[in-house]
């Protein structure tokens, strides 16, 4: 008996679809005829009831009558629609939303990393990586950082144990690369960094940096300027201006801080740039000879430059994000915007 009931269900689905899809009165009439007419499918099944065993006959009969009534009602309704002034274009509601899947998103920070990598790849830099947890030697000693420099303090840097720490910059990768490879070197090293900063709108204890290193014979401060300026223009558009201010870092000399003209106000001064027209980006400079000595390069033969940048900061400027924590909270309402 289950077979016949299943069959009825199939017939019902077919008939409903045919009625729904009938585009005019003539088509509908022929559908009605083929299912509900005297020689239609339901009549045919009705005639076959006699062959069933007497016990199941009433049940199937009842289902058949139900079906007949449902299809008749449906056909009448459809007839009403088709004979009214409404056309099928009127009744077809194309404004109902489409059948969608979830839309995926790339994290804005990762999009920025990709963009940075692409820009520098175009300038001949390859990507180098290294571990987040590294030795004090790679983090500080090799970078000419004095023994009692505050950056080494427990209040500034996270330690795993004595001599092993969570890197506060990706300069470790520069050291590792130079230790492993003879010059020339042209790399960037994007990656997570760690500093013991209480989280607020502009600080996160875990953050994302990208550093660059270019070592060869005849690399000059003029080359450093060229690379940073090219990057600024590729990242933020051709109107961006760059300025270099002398600064101090133990691992470079001369050292500079570089600023981009404020992309929010176009350099005219606004709240974000504190009315200066400039936004401080990060530090750069010519690699200190002591660093070359620490990795076994000959400072009389090669020169080089290094630079850093906060990928979070670039991302925040790129999308006008006011709070760094948004980048690390992973609220999908935020991520959906990118």
């Amino acid at each position, binding site marked *: 008996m289950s077979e016949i009931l299943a069959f009825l269900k199939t017939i019902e689905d077919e008939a409903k679809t045919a009625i729904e899809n009938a585009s005019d009165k003539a088509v509908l009439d022929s559908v009605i005829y083929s299912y509900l007419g005297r020689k239609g499918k339901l009549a045919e099944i009705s005639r076959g009831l006699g062959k069933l065993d007497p016990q199941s006959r009433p049940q199937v009969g009842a289902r058949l009558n139900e079906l007949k009534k449902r299809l008749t009602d449906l056909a009448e309704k459809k007839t009403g629609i088709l004979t009214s002034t409404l056309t099928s274009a009127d009744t077809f509601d194309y404004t109902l939303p489409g059948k969608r899947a979830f839309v995926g998103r790339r994290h804005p920070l990762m999009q920025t990393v990709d963009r940075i990598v692409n820009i520098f790849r175009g*300038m001949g830099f390859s990507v180098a990586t290294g*571990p987040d947890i590294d030795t004090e030697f790679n983090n500080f000693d090799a970078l000419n950082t004095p023994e*009692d420099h505050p950056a080494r303090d427990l209040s500034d840097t996270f330690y795993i144990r004595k001599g092993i720490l969570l890197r506060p910059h990706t300069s470790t990768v520069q050291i590792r690369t130079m230790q492993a490879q003879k010059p020339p070197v042209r790399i960037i090293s994007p990656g997570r960094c760690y500093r013991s900063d209480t989280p607020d709108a502009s600080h996160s204890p875990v953050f994302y940096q990208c550093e660059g290193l270019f070592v060869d014979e*005849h690399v000059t401060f003029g080359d450093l300027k060229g690379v940073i300026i090219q990057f600024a223009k590729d990242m933020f558009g051709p109107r961006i201006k760059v300025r270099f201010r002398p600064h101090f870092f133990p691992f470079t000399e001369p050292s500079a801080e570089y600023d981009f003209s404020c992309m929010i106000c176009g350099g005219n001064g606004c709240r974000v740039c504190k009315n200066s027209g400039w936004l401080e980006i990060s530090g750069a400079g010519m690699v200190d000879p002591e660093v070359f000595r620490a990795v076994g390069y000959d400072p009389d033969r090669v020169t080089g430059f290094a630079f850093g940048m906060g990928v979070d900061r670039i991302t925040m400027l790129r999308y006008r994000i006011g709070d760094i924590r948004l980048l690390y909270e992973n609220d999908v309402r935020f991520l959906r915007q990118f």
Partner: protein
Amino acid sequence: MKISVNLLRKIIDFDWPVDKVVERLTMSGSEVEAIENKGSDIEGILAAKVIEVSKIEGSDKLTCCTVFDGKEKIDVVCGAPNVAKDQVVLFAPVGSKIPGMTLKKAKIGGKESFGMILSEAELQLSDNADEIAVLDDSIKPGKSLEGIVEYKDTILELEITPNRPDCLSHIGIAREVQALGGGKLRMPDINLNEIDKPASEAVKIVIDDPDGCPRYTGRVTRNVKIAPSPLWLKMMVYYLGMRPINNVVDITNYVMLELGHPLHAFDFDLFKKPQVLVRNAFEGEKFITLDEVERTLNSNHLLITDSVSGVAIAGIMGGEHSEVSEKTSHILLESAYFDPVTIRRGSKALGLATESSRRFERGADPDMAPVANDRACKLISEIAGGEILKGIVDTYPKPFMPVEIDLKPENVNHLLGTDLSPDTMCDILNGLNINTENRNGLKAVQPSFRPDLVREVDLSEEIARIYGFDNIPTVFRPGGTLGAEETKMERITGQVRSYLTGAGGTEIFSLTLVDSLLTKRLGLLESSVTVMNPLSEEMAVVRPGMLLSMLPVIRRNINFKEKDLFLYEIGDIYLLSDKEELPPQQNCLAIALTGNESPVFWGSAQRKSDFHTIKGLLENLADYLKLGKINLRPEDYFAFEKSRSFEVYIGDINIGYLGSVSDGCLSTADIKDKVHFVEIDMCKMVDLIPESITAKELDRFPSADRDIAVVIDENIKAEDIRTEIIDSSKGLATDVLIFDLYRGKNIPDNKKSLAFGIKYRLPDRTLTDDEVDDVHGRIAEALKSKFGAELRS
């Protein structure tokens, strides 16, 4: 460091407007962080004489005063306790301006008041708000404030880098201005009037630790009168960020700000012996500093003593006992040079940083010590009176030995990419008061105020920053191809991200420092890398698995009613290892699903993500990456439900784990919804992906498609049946799909029905019906005998 433009102009003549000073200093390395215009909102203030004071009835504070402003008598109500007849005071008449207000006629205590007698604080000349400012009697009523004190000033807040202690002073900044072409520096006047009695008879200086204290100078001044400083001095000290105390202390601070050298004045009468002994403190020695705090010293601290007991912690802070007070009349003025490292360690050990320690620990100028002493004594004798004993007692056991630096001009140009002449370089260095001669290359002598200049490259930096980074020609090199290829890892990582984003996944980037409590509750703390000095327990563990940072992200989003999540992250996990120096780091892909599989749709009901959703996602990804077939092997993983916990294999290689997060784990993470999760080791996965793809020829002959449905025991796995179908087809079954799983009506308990669609195919011809019937039958037989399968039609 705060710099007063007025004070700067006293040391160097320059005609630059302030904005040019700001620009040039910023662009040469002393960044101007803030500019304060002092006195710009003050107008019309003048000196006036108080000619009458009377109490106002019913008020114990207010008085009614009559003042004379040089032209007329004016009534004014005053609330200050120190107002008195015949004082010359600062007066704001009606219509004048003080910071924050314009004076108007007012009624105070029932009396009309036509102006205001001012305190220094009301004019922001000092922090003294308790009393009115009383001027020198010699000042004539009617004299304008401009004529009394140079209160209009511009204060620049400079960021001084740690290598430039010399710039923590006006003279240092003046030297920068000089080098930048602003004018010529001139030293302040230090010509003293001394009395005949020699200072060397009044005080002896003994240095026990010449490494800690290479130089100590002392001068003795008798019969000084301690009093508040004159207005100009108070104001300058206050403008530069310090509190005015009294004339002698203010002078020591003023000279420190002017010349950069910290000084300390002792009440010499309180010395038990007229002998300074500079020695190391004893371990645990107690000393009360002038802020009335008892400090415990260690043996690395340098203590200034009167040869009996301590009088100051060298270079950090003086002692309470010998502090200059109103009673003081004899002064010993110390101007010493202390070792930077000793002061830095000492200051750190005490947790006490002062204006003095900040300068010594970065490196003061040993040759400035006597100059600063002379300068301060000159001002003391002028302002506080007193007789300066003849001579300076100067103990200098370790004289400064300047480094002579050879500079090859071609090296400088080579480093900077410039074409500067040796003469230009020479001029720049001499402008910075670095004595340099141009003979056969440049020879420079390190100045005593520049501890940072010892190498050629240090001088290159000086040349670069004074020449101007902006003036160095910018070079745009062609890109080149130096090792800039993309690694397989980078390429595949990009593909994974594109695929998952396209499939609807949201990429997250979570913190690698995770909650120690969550880690502990999940039983992973013992096997995790932990931070020795965490900011908080919530960020104390370096994540041992991606799930630990994923779960809090899921919880956060669910809390904000974002319940349908498909999140992924490519990041690192960190493992504990006894063998390796550094904890091994593993790059991982993590995917988590929770809630509905797809967005709400009006035409059909939503389905929840489940185990097979995440499995399908991984299978799709594997397919996309050409990774090969994913096999799951049951394995208990701490976070997963027992029956839904698997290791992921490609062939024999375990690349990760997949499963449904257990209720216990979810409740630990405070999540109520089901979460399905997979973590894959990126390195292992990438290794398994073929380097290249070779296109296959397409099948030229159509397949014969047949279905087979079998009823089998519940514990038989679909994959085993599927494998058997393929094996027993002798290679004819090229595709076997499971298209239905049915339990219920007509299927006995503990049984299930599985339906397979099979494509039979030969590469070189079409199969005949007989052949297909034959193999299909063989398969049915095999399933029957191996699994007791019952065919269902």
